[in-house]
């Protein structure tokens, strides 16, 4: 078990110190491109030999960003701006900012004008992304991003490099999916906090580096005997699930994450880039195939609730913990239908309001403890 713990400890070190990682890359002379939520085509960055760095807020206090946002905005957006304003993102060679929700729209503008020193790349993802004209539009906007990245990198991004980057990312996604399954099967070896660190650290490493470590870990987990862990498996849903206090409370109550529908975790790794002679087109096709996410319009309207139920059943979770990012419209608007689907299937759930400024976890502790009681009686 020591070797598994060693690797997990390395992942935790990386996940807890993004700033060190960033400075490390910069010192090595690498160009780092900050990637805001959601669905940034990181393969383009990687193909330009630059480092894609996930920037999904941070735990902290919002202060400078108050000059741009009233209180009722999600902390991820506000903290991203806060970090930009307080120099924490200094050294980035660029940021890529999508606009898939009503907070990202003003965030993109505010960030662009408030942090003018960091070259700004905008992503106008289409919601009608499956039909041919939609795929074409994705190709067009990804093409624009590619050009801007080339200008920053100082050289062209060849199709060969892009194809190779796609391979790297497909392998990375596959490795992470395997880890999610194995961690769900072996809660005795991987605590909720450790699981989160493995996934979160992928934001702060090149995918090549990350995959090497994940593969190593996966092998060791696969070698374990069948688990006889006696706790309760749950399913998580939300935007972020990386708060160490909350994860610790899950562990305290003998709850383990069997699988997740979390934007920063599994939502980003469900879909691989398909094979296509034109790698840019392949990336556009991949975006077209992303689904089951409240942020993305799905013309097959009822797919998502059905998909989530299927996920829950196949990982043998007994209940669902929804980590509702405060002020997140898309998640809030999806909730009633998710709730209905869960109730129809008699799958218990709780919903905990979270944000990155949380300091008091008493209510969350009470809810999770009570939920564990409810699940153990079921």
């Amino acid at each position, binding site marked *: 078990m020591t070797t598994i713990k060693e690797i997990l400890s390395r992942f935790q070190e990386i996940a807890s110190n993004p700033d060190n990682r960033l400075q490390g890359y910069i010192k090595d002379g690498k160009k780092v491109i900050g990637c805001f939520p959601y669905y940034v085509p990181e393969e383009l960055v990687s193909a330009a030999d630059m480092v894609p760095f996930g920037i999904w807020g941070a735990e902290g206090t919002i202060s400078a960003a108050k*000059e*741009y*946002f*009233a209180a*009722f*905005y999600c902390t991820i957006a506000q903290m991203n701006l806060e970090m930009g304003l307080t120099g924490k993102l200094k050294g980035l060679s660029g940021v890529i900012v999508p*606009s*898939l*929700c*009503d*907070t990202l*729209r*003003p*965030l*993109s*503008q*505010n960030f*662009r*004008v*408030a942090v003018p020193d960091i070259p700004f790349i*905008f992503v*106008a*993802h*289409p*919601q*009608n992304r499956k*039909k*041919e*004209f*939609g795929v*074409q*539009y994705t190709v*067009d*906007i990804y093409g624009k991003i590619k050009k801007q990245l080339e200008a920053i990198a100082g050289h062209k991004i060849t199709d060969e490099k892009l194809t190779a980057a796609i391979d790297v990312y497909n392998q990375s996604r596959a490795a992470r999916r395997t880890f999610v399954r194995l961690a769900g099967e072996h809660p005795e070896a991987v605590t909720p906090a450790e699981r989160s660190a493995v996934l979160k650290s992928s934001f702060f490493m090149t995918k090549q580096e990350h995959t090497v470590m994940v593969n190593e870990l996966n092998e060791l987990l696969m070698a374990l005997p069948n688990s006889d862990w006696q706790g309760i498996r749950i399913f998580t849903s939300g935007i972020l699930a990386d708060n160490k206090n909350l994860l610790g409370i899950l562990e305290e109550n003998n709850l383990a994450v069997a699988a997740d529908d979390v934007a920063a975790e599994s939502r980003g790794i469900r879909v691989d880039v398909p094979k296509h002679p034109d790698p840019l087109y392949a990336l556009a096709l991949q975006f077209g195939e992303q689904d089951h996410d*409240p942020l993305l*319009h799905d*013309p097959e*309207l*009822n797919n998502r609730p059905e998909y989530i139920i299927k996920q829950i059943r196949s990982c043998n979770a007994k209940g669902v913990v929804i980590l509702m990012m*405060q*002020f997140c*419209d*898309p998640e*809030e*608007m*999806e*909730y*009633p*239908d998710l*709730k209905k689907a869960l109730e129809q299937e008699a799958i218990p759930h709780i919903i905990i309001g979270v944000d990155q400024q949380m300091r008091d976890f008493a209510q969350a502790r009470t809810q999770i403890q009570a939920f564990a009681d409810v699940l153990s009686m079921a």
Partner: protein
Amino acid sequence: MEQEEKKAAKIMLREVVDQVYQEAWDAKKRGEPVGWSSSKFPAEIAETLGLKVCYPENQAAAVAAKHGGQRMCEAAEGMGYSNDICAYARISLAYAAGEEAEEKPMPQPDFLLCCNNICNCMTKWYENIARMHNIPLIMFDIPYNNETEVSEESVAYLKGQFYDVIGQLEAISSRKWDEERFEEVCKNSNRTAKAWLKACSYCQYEPSPLSGFDLFNHMADVVTARCKPETAEAFEALAEEYEQAVKDGTSTWRYDENYRIMFEGIPCWPVLRTLFTPLKNKGINTTAVVYAPAFGFVFNNLEEMMKAYYKAPNSVCLETGVKWREGICRENKVDGVLVHYNRSCKPWSGYMPEMERRFRKDLGIPVVGFDGDQADPRNFSEAQYTTRVDGLFELMEENKKGRGSV
């Protein structure tokens, strides 16, 4: 042929909107499919195919103005919708789920026309209704534009969707697309837009021949009926009335016009009178409203039409939004800006702090904000609002005397 007694424009305008709802009810009775549409979905398409459509945003505003907003919002919250969600959406979702709204009833939808140029919330809102009713959702996606011009690829994307939407609506209406009828409809909507903009432009006169708050009411027509010739006629009549008022030196603003302001944001429908009173008492007329001219869709061909629909207040980049507002502030000679920080509208309220700074710097006038909500009365405080208006008044006084700096 002249009528003996000319109908007042505001009556014509009200009748146009009543007609929209009536036609929807009649169509429903006849067994025809009736649609619900986003306010900035290209209305020309449904109109060309003879489909009757009504507008949940207009309904929500009317319900809120008649004091049904809280009840409907609470009903939505009881269904599990967070009170953080846009109040228009909450009201509409409650109604779609079967809550009665005697304040402004509307036939339930058979299809949905969703366009997200004004916000992303639209998409989730309409998806929820489509699921509730198990009906088709026609999605016209207009992504946010970070640039001042609309790019070629964006026009291409919209054109692709335009033809796709036509196909979907042909199936729903069981009618074929008629290009000639489309041209006629576009002529109407352009005429309406021009007449609307013309009417709004009378705010530039000092004193203004109209109370700016009137435009909030007249806006319903340009939201719900811009493709109808009656609407164009009504706005042209309105413009004529203003023209006459300028000549006669009269105004629908019956108070002193000590100061002129731009009102930024959607009005707080449940408390319009409360918004109006302190302004009236201090002689502050609203001579520029951003929300209203946002509906001036003028275009000569399909490409221009696609570009026109790219221009909603929440879909243009910061610089364009500022330019637009500073333009009407200058043209309409405002002395100050009153900003509604609308709890229901995250995209809009998200730009305002930076825009405020630019207004102060570029225009040299005071800017004051207040907290409110377009339709949920629980997010508004009369005491706070009145204090802020008093503050704005005092700043404008100082500014006029040239003593203070803003």
